[in-house]
């Protein structure tokens, strides 16, 4: 026999109280001489003895009642299946049902979805739960949600809860599952605890389990009987894994090239896959992928044109007849189309031929149409004219070989970037490193992403510079360069660079081949970004400005800098934030969900910025972030996590092998669920019978005592 609350057994010491009271009463005898002994005659003496006996009976009843109630409170249970105790006890098991609601459960085999099959399993589990037994229902996703916690089981009430359940757009986070289930089990009071995990057991979740996770399941199985109920389903699925802007400037009247990547997660070859690009829900481009082999991805370019300025919702949609899972067929992105992009180019050189300013202007306008050129305004000024410029008129400022700036200018530039604009900095012979370092460090976060040290020669003895490292980072700026032929990339040579010491917040975007010396660094400052070239924009230190790399890189940087925070797509489960430059008037920001709900989020002061943070986007689609209920919103694209798209479940053998030794039982059929539960040697709870017996003894004792006192009162009244 075991006790759920063994410490409460100390309550049995309470039995000493009535005994003590009885003994005190007995031993605290007062003596008196008495004359009228003739009235305390034999019958009175007999009566007195009867009363003593009655007292003892009352004491025994009271003690028994107390003992039984204390025993009941300790929640005793026996695992014996035979004998009186087993006969009196009732099977009492706390049941936790962990139901996978990740979007893969929406996959259909043509007749039923995995989720519907999972609900059938829940019904089968319900059959074995006795009314009143504690039940917990937890939905598994990116963030597991407990929808029913420790509820006394009521079939009707539970069915009502089940009827409201839906598959989410989330993926399954299995790592946090054992710990959560253990905590939930610990929270439940029952001699027997059963945990049923109903999931489609996707390979990518369950197969590559770490030792740590295996140990967690093993530990969980020590605290409860754990059953895994795999839900079988189809295998075919296509998913759009990516939608990226490859090239183009996001300006009104221009086109941009987006790349949509479609992956075949199934086991059959997907043929004639139709991929559509939609701008604001209107089809803008469609491509057909002839075939995608199982387990491979194919990319298509979608050319999307933007006729109007403002934020646009871009969707890449894959369609294939064999696909049975919808949520991952869409990939969403948001682009803010600008009416015009203005770039201020500040030159530190004298402005003679081949100056950096003209090279930058030429690079930014390269490849654009005449109309496009109108939409890109590049203004070059000498560095001495910088104080006279109103930076509000420009989206990006380029500082090329500017010797130094005043502290006031540094403050203006920092504020300019923090407001969400972009700054591109080029080195050169005129740059006064110590002054720049000093000015850059004036603010809390440095203006530049690195501390400038000194010039260094990177060329060899032959005077041939070193090329860029072709293994580039996944930075968006590098994307167009990746598509360049390697020989073209290797023609870009660098003879001199500034040796720099990157700050902790900076990212190396481009480095020199064969060394870790950064050519281009980037860091975020407020809502804007700063790019820092450790070389010149002119051809003094390199030949980059006269290669195709320069216009591609510069245009991509400008596009990147003029992009807005929300253009970056998020995944379901990510947090969405809305940041403010100044303290807003409204204390709350508003997020409209794709399903039309409105979520109000308070604006908080975070590192001297005002931010409204929506924790964990739960739906896939376009959210709308608004600074207030009345304000126009900025769409935010939220996509499903496509790792969940690999819907292939583990085979029976793999499952058995995978869970071998963990103590977890695999139950495949609904019919086997009850049998498995019985095999788990269900403990029989005795608390109810003990509590009832205890209360019965109390009632008997009370009635007995009442009868005695009533009789005494009657006698008293008679004698009065």
């Amino acid at each position, binding site marked *: 026999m075991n006790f759920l609350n063994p410490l409460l057994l100390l309550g049995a010491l309470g039995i000493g109280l009535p005994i003590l009271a009885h003994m005190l009463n007995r031993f*605290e005898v*007062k003596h008196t001489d008495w*004359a009228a*002994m003739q009235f305390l005659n034999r*019958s009175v*003496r007999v*009566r007195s003895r009867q*009363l003593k006996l009655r007292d003892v009976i009352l004491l025994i009843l009271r003690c028994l009642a107390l003992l039984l109630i204390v025993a009941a409170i300790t929640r005793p249970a026996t695992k014996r299946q035979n004998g009186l105790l087993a006969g009196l006890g009732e099977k009492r098991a706390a049941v936790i049902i962990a139901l996978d609601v990740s979007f893969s459960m929406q996959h259909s085999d043509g007749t039923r979805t995995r989720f519907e099959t999972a609900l059938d399993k829940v019904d089968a589990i319900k059959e074995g739960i006795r009314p009143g037994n504690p039940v917990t229902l937890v939905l598994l996703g990116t963030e597991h949600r407990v929808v029913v916690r420790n509820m006394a089981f009521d079939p009707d009430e539970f069915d009502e809860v089940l009827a409201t359940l839906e598959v989410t757009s989330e993926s399954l986070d299995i790592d946090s599952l054992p710990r959560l289930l253990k905590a939930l089990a610990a929270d439940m009071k029952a001699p027997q605890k059963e945990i049923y995990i109903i999931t489609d057991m996707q390979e990518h979740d369950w197969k590559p389990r770490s030792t740590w996770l295996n140990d967690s399941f093993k530990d969980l199985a020590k605290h409860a009987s754990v059953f895994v109920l795999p839900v079988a389903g189809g295998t075919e699925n296509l998913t759009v894994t990516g939608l990226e802007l490859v090239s183009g400037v996001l300006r009104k009247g221009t086109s941009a090239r987006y790349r949509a990547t479609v992956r075949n997660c199934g086991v059959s070859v997907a043929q004639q896959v139709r991929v559509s690009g939609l701008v604001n829900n209107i089809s803008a481009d469609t491509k057909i992928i002839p075939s995608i082999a199982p387990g491979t991805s194919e990319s298509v370019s979608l050319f999307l044109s933007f006729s109007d300025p403002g934020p646009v919702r871009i969707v890449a949609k894959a369609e294939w007849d064999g696909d049975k899972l919808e949520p991952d067929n869409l990939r969403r992105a948001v682009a803010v189309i600008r009416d015009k992009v203005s770039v201020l180019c500040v030159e530190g050189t004298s402005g003679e031929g081949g100056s950096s300013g003209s090279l930058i202007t030429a690079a930014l306008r390269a490849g654009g149409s005449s109309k496009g050129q109108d939409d890109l305004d590049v203004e070059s000024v000498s560095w001495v004219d910088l104080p006279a410029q109103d930076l509000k008129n420009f989206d990006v400022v380029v500082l090329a070989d500017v010797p130094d700036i005043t502290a006031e200018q540094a403050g203006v530039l920092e504020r300019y970037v923090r407001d969400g604009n972009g700054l591109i900095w080029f080195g050169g012979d005129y740059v006064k490193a110590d002054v720049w370092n000093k000015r850059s460090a004036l603010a809390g976060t440095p203006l530049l992403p690195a501390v400038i040290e000194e010039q260094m020669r990177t060329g060899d003895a032959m005077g041939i510079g070193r090329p860029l490292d072709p293994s580039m980072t996944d930075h968006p700026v590098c994307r167009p360069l990746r598509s360049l032929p390697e020989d073209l990339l290797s023609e870009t040579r660098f003879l001199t660079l500034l040796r720099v010491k990157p700050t902790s917040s900076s990212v190396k975007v481009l480095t020199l081949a064969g060394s870790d010396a950064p050519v281009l660094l980037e860091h975020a400052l407020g809502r804007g970004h700063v790019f820092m070239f450790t070389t010149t924009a002119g051809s003094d230190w390199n030949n980059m400005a006269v290669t195709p790399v320069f216009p591609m890189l510069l245009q991509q940087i400008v596009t990147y800098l003029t992009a807005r925070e929300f253009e970056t797509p998020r995944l379901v489960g990510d947090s969405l934030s809305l940041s403010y430059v100044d303290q807003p008037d409204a204390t709350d920001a508003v997020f409209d969900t794709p399903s039309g709900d409105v979520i109000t989020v308070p604006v908080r002061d975070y590192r001297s910025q005002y931010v409204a943070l929506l924790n964990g986007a739960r739906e896939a689609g376009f959210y709308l972030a608004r600074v207030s209920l009345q304000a126009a919103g900025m769409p935010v694209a939220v996509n499903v996590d496509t790792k969940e798209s690999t819907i292939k479940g583990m085979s029976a053998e793999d499952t058995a092998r995978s869970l071998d030794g963990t103590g977890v039982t695999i139950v495949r059929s609904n019919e086997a669920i009850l049998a498995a539960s019985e095999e788990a040697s269900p403990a029989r709870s005795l608390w109810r019978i003990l509590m009832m017996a205890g209360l019965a003894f109390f009632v008997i004792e009370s009635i007995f005592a009442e009868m005695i006192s009533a009789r005494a009162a009657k006698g008293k009244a008679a004698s009065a």
Partner: protein
Amino acid sequence: MTDHITQINYLDPELLQKLGDLELVAREVVEGLRVGSHRSPLRGFSTEFAHHRQYAPGDAIRDIDWRVYGRTDRYYTKLYEAETNFDCHVLIDASASMSYGSGKVNKLEYAKFLAASLAYLVLKQRDSVGLSVFDSEVRTYMPPRSAMGIIVEIDRTLREIIPTPKTTVAKQLHDIALMMKRRSFVILISDLLADVEDIMAGLDHLRFDGHNVVVLHTLDPYELEFPFKGTWRFEGLEREEPLTTQPERIREDYVTNLDKYLTALRSGCIGANIDYKTVDTSRPLDGVLNEFFAERATTLNGGAVGARQ
């Protein structure tokens, strides 16, 4: 005599002050005893005119008041009242059971005060008073005397009483009855904690000898109400077997037994023409005596003399 009184233990001057008013009442009681159903058992030495009554055949000729006849031509006889030469004998039960008292004064002490007070009142009326003390046997017999000096003797005797367990009451009452030479007014002060039949046998003897008997049944309030709470051990004063019990719970039985006993005793007294009064020792002595005399007077004015509570 007042000087004596201050030296006497059982005659509290303050109490006597209160009892002063009782003198007349007491006298009336005594007279009532003579003319009422309890006629004075002794012939008086002198006569005192009381009132006239119209002559009726059979009346003694010598009692006709000739002076009245001379004035009115009618025969009236003179009626005289004899002044009693009254003997009062107070019997005190000094058995061990009388030593019980829940308050400051036990039953015996109370009985002593009661006896002394009564003796004083009788002496004040120029009547004779005697005292007997008994327990398992008659310890003291003091024949009635009318000299005031006897009060000192009575006080000394009362002081010397040592409670002793008794066996019966009847035997002692028989013995006392044999010692009493003249018919007297016998006042028995006792808790009468014995067999009712035994008690009645003793009392009957006194009655049969022509004594006028009054029983002052002294009981402690605790004996009447049995108000004990908790667990008590009762040690018998008359060497009975002790009893440990929770009195609250046997009170019902105790009270039933007590009532049965009192009823039997009272009925016996009524049957034997004996005055009976229960005296609660928690009550002030003057109040008890006052009430006793008032009841006696009421009885004399009309009702038959009988046992009263």
